[in-house]
């Protein structure tokens, strides 16, 4: 069998190990390549196995820097920090898009080339595979003895078993039987009779190439689904304090990242209310005191004009409502702080989310009182759910739950810098145009409060209270010193919609299925021939041909020969 008669080989890249070797013909001088010739040459190079391999390795190397340098996509704060730590190096790296490796021009170039190469390989192979699926198994080679697993068996068994009148009818019977058995084993079979020798040609494992093509096409599918489908989604973050709610509209989000093609009028304005956030911490295991065991946000969801329905959001169990997925990605305390002017009128009262700084939830928060007082007032606060004093005299929290909650406040007076309407973070205070009244170098002690306490602000500005929100607060019968309900918690919700997700999953399943089939289904040919020897006797010849990796071929041929040549058993 000459390589050229192999219909399958042609569809593979020239340098595929099972593709026929192209022998350069030295005697013929190649004509000069025209534009088309060069394009064909370039295309052939791009779709060659060697290029695919090179691009794969290049892709692996190109992915490395993204793990060495913080990325804007996954760690924006890390990037800011990196710029602060390496003011000289960072801009240079940024010039090479090192902080956006996976969307950078060079990384994209590599994977796009890889996928072009893949398309250039898959399309002709798909076409050939369709042809191969309809083609008949090829003619039986003249000399089977050249092929893998070649073995012979006597025809004798068939002569006796079938009481055949002649050798040739016994041979026919044997080949018929072989064809039937091969067909039953999943082979596509074709009878050939050449030079008076009956034979059967069989091929199986077309699924191998199907799997291969499905695998590569599904990879392409993932890329397209991520690239295009991802553009229709959004992700947004919102902090919600216990007892408060938020409506799924653009303005309600603390931060919002729309996809390229996202239309914000498609947001479904449902209302999400946080009833209670349960946090459970380890209390018994001495090695893990205070380690979080469980966070559960009890919420209720109310569709526009509909009834509200209860729901639960946990760390590993997002709530999927109204086409969006709600994740619980963080939590903390939101002390309720009230500021009164010297006349005792409330000028500010709110549960202010404090951002956790460590595992024991030492938290920092900012209170801004823009109106109602003589000057604008700002407070930077530390909250310790279980306050202890370090040897240095500094406060810290020793346990994340509310055992001995303490709030300290540094008070600033002056211009909050929010009058111009420029957006500023609610979690930071710019003290540049303010005067510090307590804490730090002022010589005045920071304000220190426990739930339910009120103290006077310095300079007779008024008073500040740390409200106790326990349901039984103020009840004289309440257990003394039980602070477990005294401070509200907040939940930090991520709300996502990614319409590409289902597609990506479907393609991923196809990838695995295609991979399994393409690596484990052997594609092989098998032939059985009743060969006539020069002395006139007829023997059964068996041989196979591997088409791709097929370590079990020889056993398969031998096993088939054994089974077939003993028709009696």
């Amino acid at each position, binding site marked *: *069998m*000459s*390589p050229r008669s*192999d219909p399958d*080989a042609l569809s593979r890249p020239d*340098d595929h*190990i*099972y*593709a*026929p*070797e192209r022998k350069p013909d030295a005697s013929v001088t190649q004509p000069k390549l025209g534009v088309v010739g060069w394009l064909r040459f370039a295309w052939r190079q791009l779709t060659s*196995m*060697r290029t695919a*391999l090179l691009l*794969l*390795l290049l892709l*692996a190397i190109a*992915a*490395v820097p*993204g*793990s*060495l340098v913080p*990325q804007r*996509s*996954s760690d924006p704060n*890390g990037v800011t920090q990196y710029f602060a730590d390496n003011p000289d190096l960072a801009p240079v790296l940024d010039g090479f898009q090192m902080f956006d*490796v*996976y969307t950078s021009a060079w990384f994209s170039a590599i994977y796009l080339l890889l996928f072009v190469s893949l398309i250039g390989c898959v399309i002709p192979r798909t076409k050939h595979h369709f042809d191969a699926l309809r083609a008949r198994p090829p003619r039986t080679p003249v000399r089977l*003895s*050249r*092929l*893998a*697993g*070649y073995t012979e068996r006597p025809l004798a068994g068939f002569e006796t078993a079938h009481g055949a009148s002649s050798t040739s009818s016994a041979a026919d019977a044997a080949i018929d039987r072989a064809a039937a058995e091969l067909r039953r084993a999943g082979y596509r079979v074709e009878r050939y009779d050449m030079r008076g020798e009956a034979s059967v040609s069989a091929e199986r494992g077309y699924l191998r190439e199907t799997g291969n093509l499905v695998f590569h096409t599904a990879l392409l599918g993932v890329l397209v689904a*991520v690239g295009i489908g991802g553009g229709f989604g959004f*992700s947004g973050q919102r902090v919600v304090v216990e007892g408060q709610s938020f409506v799924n509209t653009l303005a309600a989000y603390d931060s919002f990242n729309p996809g390229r093609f996202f239309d914000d009028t498609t947001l479904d304005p449902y209302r999400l209310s946080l009833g209670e956030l349960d946090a459970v911490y*380890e209390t018994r*295991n001495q*090695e*893990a005191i205070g*380690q*979080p*065991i*469980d966070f559960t946000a009890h919420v209720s969801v109310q569709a526009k004009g509909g009834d509200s329905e209860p729901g639960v959001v946990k*760390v*590993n169990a*997002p709530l999927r409502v109204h086409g969006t997925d709600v994740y619980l*990605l963080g939590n903390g305390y939101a002390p309720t702080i009230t500021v009164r002017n010297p006349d005792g009128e409330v000028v500010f009262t709110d549960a202010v989310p404090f951002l956790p700084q460590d595992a024991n939830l030492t938290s920092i928060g900012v209170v801004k009182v823009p109106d109602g007082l003589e000057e604008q007032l700002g407070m930077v606060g530390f909250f310790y759910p279980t306050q202890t004093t370090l040897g240095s005299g500094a406060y810290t929290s020793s346990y994340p739950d509310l055992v001995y909650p303490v709030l300290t406040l540094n008070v600033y007076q002056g211009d909050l810098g929010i009058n111009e309407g420029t957006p500023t973070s609610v979690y930071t205070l710019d003290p540049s145009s303010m005067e510090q009244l307590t804490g730090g170098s002022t010589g005045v002690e920071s304000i220190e409060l426990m739930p339910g306490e009120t103290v006077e602000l310095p300079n007779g500005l008024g008073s500040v209270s740390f409200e106790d929100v326990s349901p039984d607060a103020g009840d004289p019968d309440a257990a003394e010193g039980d602070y477990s309900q005294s401070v509200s918690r907040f939940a930090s919700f991520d709300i996502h919609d990614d319409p590409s*997700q289902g597609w990506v999953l479907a393609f991923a399943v196809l*990838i*695995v299925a295609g*991979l*399994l089939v393409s*690596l484990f289904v052997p594609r092989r040919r098998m032939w059985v021939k009743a060969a006539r020897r020069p002395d006139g006797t007829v023997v059964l010849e068996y041989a196979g041909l*591997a*088409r791709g990796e*097929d*370590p079990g*071929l*020889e056993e398969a041929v031998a096993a088939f020969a054994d089974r077939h040549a003993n028709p009696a058993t």
Partner: protein
Amino acid sequence: MTLDEISIILVYSAMAVYAIAFIAYAIDLARRSAAATRAADLVGVAPSVSAPAVVAGGRAATSVGSATDATTASVPESSGTVAIERAVPSAGEAEVTGTGPATPAAPRKLGASVASGATVASVAYGRSPALRVGVAMTVIAWVLHLSADVTRGLAAGRVPWANMYEFALTGTLVITTVYLVVLVVAKYDLRFLGTFVTGLVLVLLGVATVNFYVSVVPLPPALQSAWLVIHVFVATSATGFLALGFALSVVQLMQSRRESLAASAKAVKQNFLATLPDSAALENLAYRVIIVGFILWTFTLMAGAIWAEAAWGRYWGWDTKEVWTFIIWVVYAGYIHARATRGWRGSRSAWLAIIGFSTVLFSFTVVNLFFKGLHAYSGL
């Protein structure tokens, strides 16, 4: 004594037995070298006794038969006598490799075809007492190791792979398990890999107990998922298969170097490699082990993405560990392509397998400990 303390004692016991197994395997390798040298001497002294082809052209078309062939061919094995196994490739194969059609689709039987033409006499070698001791000790160590892993799981009340120590404990157990299973299943006698396997397991267990140990603590909420059972276990299994593929690739490179030396030089120093399968057989074995590892790794990646979607709100975010999982996947995809690329099969693809496993180890150690990311579950 708590269950965890029992588990630690079992780990140390397993390590001690692994150490004995390692020594036994090493002695076996030394004996293999001696056997190979003796065989070479025998050939030199009495060429008529052994295969004449070896002397004549130094190009005996030989094959290392299956393990059983090798054992039957050797005269009383424990006595240390060795025999040169004459190549008896079946008629068909001999023709294919020699004069077969030009198509590279020519079948390659494991170990039977010596593609490069660099052919070396292989020395049949049975199972020395040292090898038997090594395997027996490995089985005992495996039982201890398994008990250690199970008691750790019982002590923690969950699957024992939720932090780096437990991952190492289970991962090494999987490596040994894969090795023992392959011993039973494979056509070739792969007991010679014992030195590598027990050595690697011993080192990793040592590092794990000394540097990674953490006491039993409850699972953080992010790990409380059924995916912990699936994703992480599949990752450890993949690591087990890829480790074995790595070992086979290393031996393959050594063997192919020896083969090319033997093809070019008249005399080649005899060492334990003479008793092992030829490089083509090793390459095929490595490939088959690695594709299993690759599929498991693909599944690891996807299961991880599904879990990340539930736990972190996105299925893929280029977190450092995700990046390295991707890199490992791409390197092994490259390996599989290299196997199918003309000019890359053989030593080049073996190097890719070695690089691939290096990235696995890098991801497990350096990335876990020093890179900032969401996979911060080492417990250290």
